[in-house]
């Protein structure tokens, strides 16, 4: 499969500003940081959640714990992932019971990742509330899932892919829209 870059959706600076806005939104709309916690979905949700927590700490002086979640075991499409679906550890050191959780991921698309994430979280306990925060919402939902905190909404076609590149993983910082070519 070949891909062709179509256009840039967010520059590095725009990512940074968006995350700052999201961090403040979350604090505002959470009625207090008491039981608040962020859960980064592997892979790119993790650095995003860590950055948001860091911004919360620096600007709003609010300390919110960050956990990481690997959803591979909860996927409903395991047989299409490829021959060797590697599992990673989830790390949530705080209890999940009665927590006000915000799940953080890079792109919201069909909604299946979020469903798997919820299954995973319910295996660990009974959170009081779960909301979703994403950098990009690209539409094409297949399940009734919505994000409460959205960085940017983008209209895309089925063949297009939204690529979020972050320094921690990709050594560059931007969001690209790419297209699959035959």
């Amino acid at each position, binding site marked *: *499969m070949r891909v062709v870059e179509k256009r840039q959706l967010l520059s590095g600076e725009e990512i940074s500003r968006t995350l700052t806005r999201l961090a403040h939104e979350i604090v505002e709309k959470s009625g207090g940081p008491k039981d608040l916690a962020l859960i980064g979905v592997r*892979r*790119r949700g993790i650095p995003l959640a860590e950055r948001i927590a860091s911004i919360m700490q620096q600007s709003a002086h609010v300390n919110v714990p960050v956990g990481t979640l*690997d959803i591979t*075991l*909860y*996927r*409903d499409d*395991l*047989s*299409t*992932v*490829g*021959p*060797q*679906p*590697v*599992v*990673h*550890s*989830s790390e949530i050191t705080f209890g999940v019971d009665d927590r006000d959780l915000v799940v953080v*991921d*890079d*792109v*919201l*698309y*069909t*909604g*299946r*990742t*979020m469903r798997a994430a919820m*299954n995973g979280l*319910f*295996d*660990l*306990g009974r959170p009081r509330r779960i909301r979703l925060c994403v950098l990009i919402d690209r539409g094409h939902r297949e399940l009734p899932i919505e994000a409460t905190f959205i960085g940017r909404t983008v209209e895309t076609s089925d063949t297009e*892919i*939204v*690529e*979020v590149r972050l320094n921690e993983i990709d050594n560059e910082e931007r969001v690209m829209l790419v297209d*699959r070519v035959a």
Partner: protein
Amino acid sequence: MQRLQHILGIEGLTTEQITFILDQAKPFQEFQRYPLKKLATLRGKTVAIAFFESSTRTRISFTTAASRLGADTMNLQAESSSLKKGESLIDTVRTLEAMRPDGIVIRHAASGAPEFVAERLAIPVFNAGDGTHEHPTQGLLDALTIRDKKGSLEGWNITIIGDILHSRVARSNIHLLTKFGSRITLCGPAMWVPRELESLAPNVRRVLRIEDALTGADVVIVLRVQTERLHEPSIAAEEYILQYQLTPERLRLAKPDTIVLHPGPMIRGLEIDPAVADGPQSCVLEQVTNGLAVRMALLYHLIGGAPADAPHPAKERSNATD
């Protein structure tokens, strides 16, 4: 790394494959601590558990592993003594196959039986112990236990005590640990530790006195004394205890941070002193948990996932999935 199709023995695995399995077992170790131990990962899949030799622990471990992954199990328990004539293995296997399981776990008294089955069925075969040949999942869970406690599998002095000749667990351990460069010392009564065992793998030596075997050991693996022995006289229990029981005094000859493993079930007071079995160096309970983790990882990898020849789907890039 070559994808695993079956798990028939350790001898045929590379260190890369073994490391992969142990790494993949780690998330499943944590999973055993979750309050809700039920995944839907293998939901709708069926695992046939075909035990032609009696076993409680391994059978329960595999059955639990499959259930916790959300799979259903088909349980076949055919106690077969070598004298019993009955349905042949090929017929039993074909019958099971007609019920279309997605994998089969097999324990059998004949060495080579899982390979026999794997040659005839198109589904993954998991060897839960064949004759005196191998018990690969035991070898893997022992390795995971050693790696967790010691930090690595390389370069340790590992002593195995007992009836090595008839132990498939010992053979799997020997193959696995020598692949990673550890050194094995085998110890037991002469008729149970023949010289031929030294040719199984590099860095294997055999020693008849337990004191010599324990000096300098980092890991001690104690084997059960098998009292069901055909064609051969056994050794009197008192004789064995006198010469080969692992007592606290003898254990002190090993290094101070030595760990003690036992594949179970233990006969306390025979091959192992209860004080050692329950003591701080004993890892038998971790072995059991690790057994579940390893078996879940193997079931997950061999039964979950796309068929080996499936192309990678378009949504392969990790940030392009939803």
